[in-house]
C-alpha cells in the first residue's frame, strides 16, 4: 500500500483516534502530518511495517508527547500534566483486529463532535469535510466559493469553539441520539446538496462534494446500523445522485426531470437507493428523510415521465407536510398535486402559499406558479410570474432556463 493511498483512505480514521488520544484537534492534525512525514522517510529504507496504521498512530502519539514535553506552557499546568500522563498510558486501538470497536467509536465520536448543534451549520460543514472527509482547506473553500483565508478562519473559529466552550469529544448517550443525529444528517445532506445544486463553473469539485457526502453517509450507516434515518439519508442521496449526469445539458443548462434522458440514470445507485428506502420505511416508518427518499424512489422507478405515480407522490408530500411542515415542502406538495389532480388544484395551493408571504424571496414559488399558469393558458400571468422568478434567481443555469420559459410564453401564438 502506498503512503498516498494510505493517507487518502485512512487519514480520517487515524485522525479520529488521535483527537481522542491527544484531546485537541490542532495538535492531532499536526502530529498526524508529522507521522506521515516520518513514514515517507523511514519506510523507503526499512520497508512498510506490517501494520502501517498502528505504526502511524503510535508515531503520532510519540510526536504529541514530545511536543507537550517541549512546550513550557503545558509543563506549567497541572491539568495538562495529568492529560499528558493519560496520553502515555492511553491505548491506541488495534488496527489489525477488525473486531476492535474503538476505531469505529473514535470515528463516531468525531462525526458527532464535528456536527455538534452548538456549532453553526457552516462551521459543521467545513469541519466535517476537513477532519472526516480529509479535504484540504483550499478544496473546501473552492467548493463553497469562498476565499481560502475565509475558510481557514472558519475552521480556526470552529476548533476554537470546541475547545473554549467545552464541546465534548463523544458520541451522545442513547437518549440524546435521535436529536443529535438530526444535526449530523442535516450537515451531511447540506454537503450533498451543495454539490448537487451546482451545475456549472466549479462543477468538478462540487460533484466531489456529492461523492464525499455519500461516502460519509455510508460510514454513518455502517457505524449506526439500526438508524433508519441515516439509511434513508443515504438512500435519498443515492437516488438524487443517480440522475446527476442528466440534470444539465452539455452547455450546463438545467434539464427538468421530465426531460431527462432516463436511460442514462445510474441503475446501480437506483437499485441500492430503492432497497435502502424500502428497509428504512419498513423498519423506521415515515421519518423526515424516509418520506423524501420514498418520493425520490417513485421518480426513479418511472421508466418514462408518463409512468410517474403522481397521486402517490402527492400523498407522500401531504404526509411530509403534515409531520414536518415547512413552506418549501408546501411548495413541492402543490407542484405534485398539480401533476396528480390538475394544474388548477395545484395553482390554488400555490396562490394560498404566495398570499401567506411565508416564502417571499424564493424564486421557485413564482417559477412554479408560472408553469401552472402557462399550462392553464394564462400566458400573460405566466410571463409576469416568470419575471418575478427571474428577479430572485441566483443560479446561472436556472436563470437561463427561466429566460427560455419566459420567451416561450411571451411568443405570439400563431
Amino acid at each position, binding site marked *: 500500500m502506498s503512503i498516498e493511498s494510505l493517507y487518502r483512505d485512512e487519514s480520517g480514521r487515524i485522525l479520529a483516534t488521535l483527537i481522542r488520544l491527544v484531546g485537541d484537534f490542532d495538535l492531532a492534525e499536526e502530529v498526524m502530518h508529522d507521522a506521515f512525514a516520518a513514514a515517507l522517510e523511514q519506510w523507503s529504507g526499512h520497508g512498510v511495517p506490517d501494520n502501517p496504521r498502528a505504526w502511524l498512530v503510535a508515531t503520532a502519539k510519540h510526536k504529541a508527547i514530545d511536543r507537550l514535553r517541549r512546550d513550557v506552557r503545558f509543563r*506549567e499546568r497541572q491539568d495538562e500534566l495529568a492529560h499528558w500522563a493519560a496520553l502515555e498510558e492511553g491505548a491506541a486501538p488495534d488496527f489489525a483486529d477488525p473486531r476492535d470497536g474503538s476505531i469505529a467509536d473514535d470515528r463516531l465520536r468525531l462525526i458527532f463532535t464535528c456536527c*455538534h448543534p*452548538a456549532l453553526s451549520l457552516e462551521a459543521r460543514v467545513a469541519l466535517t469535510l476537513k477532519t472526516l472527509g480529509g479535504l484540504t482547506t483550499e478544496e473546501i473553500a473552492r467548493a463553497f466559493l469562498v476565499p481560502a483565508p475565509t475558510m481557514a478562519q472558519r475552521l480556526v473559529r470552529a476548533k476554537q469553539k470546541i475547545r473554549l*466552550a*467545552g*464541546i*465534548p469529544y463523544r458520541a*451522545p448517550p442513547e437518549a440524546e441520539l435521535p436529536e443529535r443525529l438530526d444535526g449530523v444528517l442535516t450537515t451531511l445532506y447540506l454537503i450533498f446538496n451543495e454539490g448537487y445544486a451546482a451545475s456549472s463553473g466549479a462543477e468538478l469539485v462540487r460533484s466531489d462534494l456529492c461523492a464525499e457526502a455519500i461516502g460519509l453517509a455510508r460510514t454513518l450507516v455502517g457505524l449506526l446500523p439500526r438508524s433508519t434515518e441515516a439509511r434513508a439519508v443515504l438512500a435519498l442521496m443515492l437516488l438524487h445522485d443517480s440522475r446527476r449526469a442528466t440534470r444539465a445539458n452539455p452547455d450546463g443548462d438545467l434539464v427538468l426531470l421530465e426531460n431527462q434522458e432516463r436511460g442514462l440514470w445510474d441503475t446501480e445507485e437506483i437499485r441500492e437507493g430503492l432497497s435502502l428506502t424500502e428497509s428504512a420505511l419498513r423498519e423506521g416508518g415515515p421519518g423526515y428523510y424516509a418520506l423524501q427518499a420514498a418520493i425520490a424512489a417513485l421518480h426513479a422507478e418511472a421508466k418514462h415521465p408518463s409512468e410517474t405515480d403522481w397521486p402517490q407522490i402527492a400523498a407522500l408530500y401531504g404526509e411530509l407536510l403534515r409531520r414536518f411542515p415547512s413552506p418549501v415542502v408546501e411548495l413541492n406538495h402543490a407542484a405534485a398535486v398539480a401533476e396528480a389532480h390538475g394544474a388548477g388544484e395545484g395553482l390554488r395551493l400555490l396562490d394560498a402559499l404566495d398570499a401567506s408571504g411565508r416564502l417571499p424571496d424564493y424564486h421557485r414559488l413564482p417559477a412554479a406558479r408560472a408553469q401552472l399558469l402557462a399550462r392553464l393558458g394564462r400566458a400573460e400571468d405566466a410571463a409576469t410570474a416568470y419575471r418575478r422568478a427571474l428577479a430572485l434567481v441566483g443560479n446561472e443555469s436556472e436563470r437561463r432556463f427561466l429566460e427560455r420559459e419566459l420567451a416561450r410564453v411571451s411568443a405570439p401564438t400563431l
Partner: protein
Amino acid sequence: MRYLLLIYDAESQWAGLNESQKGQMFQEYMTFTESIKKSGHWLAGQQLQPIASATTVRIRNGRMTTTDGPFAETREQLGGFYMIEASNLDEATAIAARVPSAKIGSIEVRPIVERAG
C-alpha cells in the same frame, strides 16, 4: 469547567403574570436552584432588579459619563444568572434547559476563562 448561564427574558412578560403565576415561577426557581445545589453544579446565582434600575458607565477621553438604562436595548433583557460547574458543554446546556425561564426566554451559556495558578 465553569459556565455562566445568563437568563434573558422579556420583563413585560413577567409584568403580565398574575400573583399566583408569579408565585409558581418563584417556586420553580426555588426547586431548580435547590436541585443544582444538591447535585454539586451550583456555584452562584442571583436575580437582578428590572432594567429600569440599570445605569451604564463609560469613560471616554478620560471623562466618565453615566447614563440611565442598560448597555443595549433588546427585546429580552438580562434578568439574572447562575454560575455552574459542569464537565462539558453538553452538561451545561442540559442544566440551562432546566432553568425555568428557558420556557419563555433564552439562556445564554458562556464558558468562564480559567487561568492557571
